[in-house]
């Protein structure tokens, strides 16, 4: 063994049943306390001490590899046990301090795990190709159609003013339709789930896509209804394809969006 360097304890998730840990996913083990299993691994202070962690958070390659490990380990456990997933970078200095935390939150953790049993998190992000939607609306919106005809038969001066007006109308129509489609999709999917969340929209710089994100949502779905849920998402995709909407439906995820434990500060 190497000379004792200080290790920290990184917490991935908590379960109520003995978690099956896969080999080759890092040195993962569990800490048992009062009916709860905390899935953890030892991490180095040189990477995860408060100070070093802050430095590493500026390094995207580092973040990328670590968040993937975080996700993979939880997914591995999730395959045969219901998990309560923790936020990336939840770290304890000693096993005692981890156990103190487990003791403090025992009731909530057990309650959350009971609520999550037999359910899966699915994510649905909807994107919109604005130009494609515009080209449909030009043909559909009566007011815009009318304005187009008027422009064609107007003097250049009047046409200029009307064009500005037409652009305004288009903007309004786009907003109205995008809201309508987003809301309809969300309601349909919510109807097939136990709980649903709407999250912050992410800008193009982050999504790296040409189309605009118009809905970022997450659903907690009963395992028995997942097929139905996916079918509904696929139905929406087909329905709105010609209108420039693109659906990204992913899962099953660890239920990050449906834990109620938020102890800030």
């Amino acid at each position, binding site marked *: 063994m190497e000379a004792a360097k200080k290790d920290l304890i990184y917490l991935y998730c908590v379960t109520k049943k003995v978690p099956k840990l896969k080999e080759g996913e890092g040195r993962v083990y569990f800490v048992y306390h009062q009916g709860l299993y905390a899935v953890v691994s030892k991490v180095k202070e040189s990477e995860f001490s408060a100070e070093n962690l802050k430095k590493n958070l500026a390094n995207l390659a580092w973040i990328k590899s670590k968040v993937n490990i975080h996700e993979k380990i939880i997914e591995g456990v999730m395959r045969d046990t219901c998990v309560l997933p923790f936020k990336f970078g939840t770290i304890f200095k000693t096993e005692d301090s981890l156990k103190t935390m487990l003791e403090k939150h025992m009731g909530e953790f057990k309650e*959350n795990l009971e609520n999550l049993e037999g359910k899966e998190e699915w994510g649905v992000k909807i994107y919109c190709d604005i130009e494609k939607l515009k080209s449909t609306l030009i043909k559909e919106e009566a007011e815009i159609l009318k304005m187009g005809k008027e422009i064609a038969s107007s003097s250049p001066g009047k046409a200029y003013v009307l064009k500005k007006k037409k652009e305004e109308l288009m903007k309004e129509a786009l907003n109205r339709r995008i809201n309508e489609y987003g809301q309809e999709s969300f309601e349909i999917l919510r109807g097939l789930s136990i709980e649903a969340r709407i999250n912050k929209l992410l800008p193009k710089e982050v999504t790296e896509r040409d189309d605009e994100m118009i809905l970022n949502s997450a659903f907690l779905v009963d395992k028995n209804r997942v097929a139905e849920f996916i079918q509904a998402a696929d139905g929406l995709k087909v329905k709105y394809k010609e209108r420039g909407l693109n659906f990204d439906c992913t899962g099953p995820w660890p239920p990050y969006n449906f834990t109620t434990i938020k102890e800030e500060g």
Partner: protein
Amino acid sequence: MAEADVITKSKDVTLLEVLDRVLDKGAVVSGDIVISIADVDLIYIGLKVLLSSVETMERLRGAPMPGAREEPT
């Protein structure tokens, strides 16, 4: 007809999908070391900086940018 290709199983989802969950969702407890909300914002800012520098590189190489407009020179 479109098959259920709308579904991408978590194996090949993007880094964004993972980041969007693990950074500010999940159970939050006061561990001995935790990532603050400000840190999460910094990561997103870092992500944008990186992406824009990739964009700049492509522009310098003369690759056409999808949806890019000609900039007045």
